[in-house]
């Protein structure tokens, strides 16, 4: 006999919630930082843009350039992680049945969602630290009060993009999610107010862009990091996207 008697004697029970959550967050963070395409999206491209925008004068940016560049890449980083990366991984996680797998364990379902959000937050934190450090090396000096506003905007931006990302990744087929999430990322980067500030876009587009989470987040961050107070409108736009997309997502997202 391969198994000794008593090996499988039942001793069921749920593990400590804190340990369950910590294990899931740690694992999801590791997975996100281990996957080449995701790292390209969440760290490499933002880093390249941070350096490029700070040192090369291709796109018109308010001075000091590194402050504007940091604002731009922070918005991009949040969009990449919370929206594109999140949607794609959710789409494929559903395809590979991991949500059903976890739903069949003792983990309460709310904890599974919390674990995902935790993983996403951890990646954003890594982005903030890495991008912040590189910006410091490039001559960025945090102004008085601005990091607080910037942090609030990052949190709201992650909520807005995260909600849209979950809505996308949780409802469509994995391949479709992959395509849509990447196209939307590309469009928002160039025409959504991230790379090119709203003011530099043609009239009607400048207005529309500020109603998008990308435009609201990037414009808000640019104001905050250049020492100003972000417009209330930008904050409201992010909250509305988070609440509306989140509300639809809770009703429509499928676990498999």
């Amino acid at each position, binding site marked *: 006999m391969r198994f000794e*008697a008593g090996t499988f004697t039942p*001793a*069921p029970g749920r593990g400590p919630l804190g340990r369950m959550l910590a294990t899931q967050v740690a694992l999801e963070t590791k997975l996100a930082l281990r996957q080449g395409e995701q790292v390209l999206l969440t760290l490499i491209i933002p880093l390249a843009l941070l350096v490029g925008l700070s040192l090369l004068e291709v796109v018109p940016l308010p001075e000091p350039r590194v402050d504007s560049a940091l604002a731009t890449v922070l918005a991009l980083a949040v969009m990449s992680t919370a929206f594109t990366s999140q949607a794609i991984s959710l789409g494929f996680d559903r395809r590979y049945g991991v949500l059903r797998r976890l739903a069949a364990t003792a983990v309460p379902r709310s904890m599974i969602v919390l674990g995902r959000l935790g993983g996403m937050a951890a990646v954003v934190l890594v982005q903030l630290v890495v991008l912040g450090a590189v910006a410091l090396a490039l001559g960025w000096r945090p102004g008085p009060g601005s990091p607080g506003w910037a942090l609030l905007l990052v949190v709201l931006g992650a909520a807005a993009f995260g909600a849209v990302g979950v809505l996308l990744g949780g409802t469509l087929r994995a391949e479709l999610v992959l395509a849509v999430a990447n196209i939307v990322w590309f469009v928002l980067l160039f025409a959504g107010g991230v790379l090119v500030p709203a003011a530099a876009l043609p009239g009607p587009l400048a207005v529309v862009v500020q109603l998008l989470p990308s435009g609201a987040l990037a414009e808000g961050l640019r104001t905050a990091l250049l020492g100003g107070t972000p417009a209330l409108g930008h904050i409201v736009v992010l909250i509305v996207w988070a609440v509306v997309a989140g509300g639809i997502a809770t009703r429509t997202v499928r676990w498999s």
Partner: protein
Amino acid sequence: MSGSPAALSVRGLVVHYQGRAAVDGLDLDLPPGSVLALLGPNGAGKTTTVEVCEGLRSRDSGEVRVLGVDPAGAPDTLRARLGVMPQGGGAYPGVRVREMIGLVAACAADPLDPDWLVDTLGLIGCARTPYKRLSVGQQQRLALACAVVGRPELVFLDEPTASLDPQGRRLVWDLVRALRADGVAVLLTTHLMQEAETLADHIVIVDHGRVVAEGSPEDLTAAGADRELRFRATAGMDLELLAAALPEGCTVSEPSSGSYLVEGAIDPQVLSTVTSWCARQGVLADDLRVARRSLEDVFLELTGRELRS
């Protein structure tokens, strides 16, 4: 509470899926510490039934009690007592084998040692391989590890050996036997007759969402087993006298030259009639046997021979 409840009790389960009844009034009973095999062709409603019991799917009507608890709404306290191997497994595409077992182990209060499981289930060579690069058989063994790591009282195995090689199948069979010996109840679905016959205390054959037969493996294969007797002898014997000597309801024929078939209720009297008739003819009845049906015969007879999509 009176005594220990059945591991599983299902009464009149009905589940509609895309406008048709995938499960249509199903009853199941699984006593504690025993093995129940749900046997049926593709689309018979096996997986749907299991998913309802696991709390992963809602039902339209019927009573379901899993370890005495209604799985609807899937209370966490109940799920902590179950071990689930979903069909096709389930893991993050990029997760490594050891990491996935570790995650599921972290959900349990007193899990088995994940490293021991990795080793025992023959996954040591791919412990660091991402899930999406595993072979289907490796994925299946990982799913099995995840199903038992939490030391559950009741284990659901949905087609646990569907893509395994013979060695892998033996491993799963050993595991199911060990679970049973240690007092764990097991519900497994399969369309492998041999698997059901080898492992199960009780077999339920389902088709079109209904139970078409059930019983112990012996019950199922014995029922109707005494319906035919075959023997070989000289070709072209005159069967008229034998037919007259046989009890009413029994017929005799020579389906192929020298091969004789007696159909009807075969009892010792019939056997003796046939052998003494042969003796009177001065021939030796060769290769004389009462046919015993295999579970496969029973299964095909009940569920039809046509292919299912």
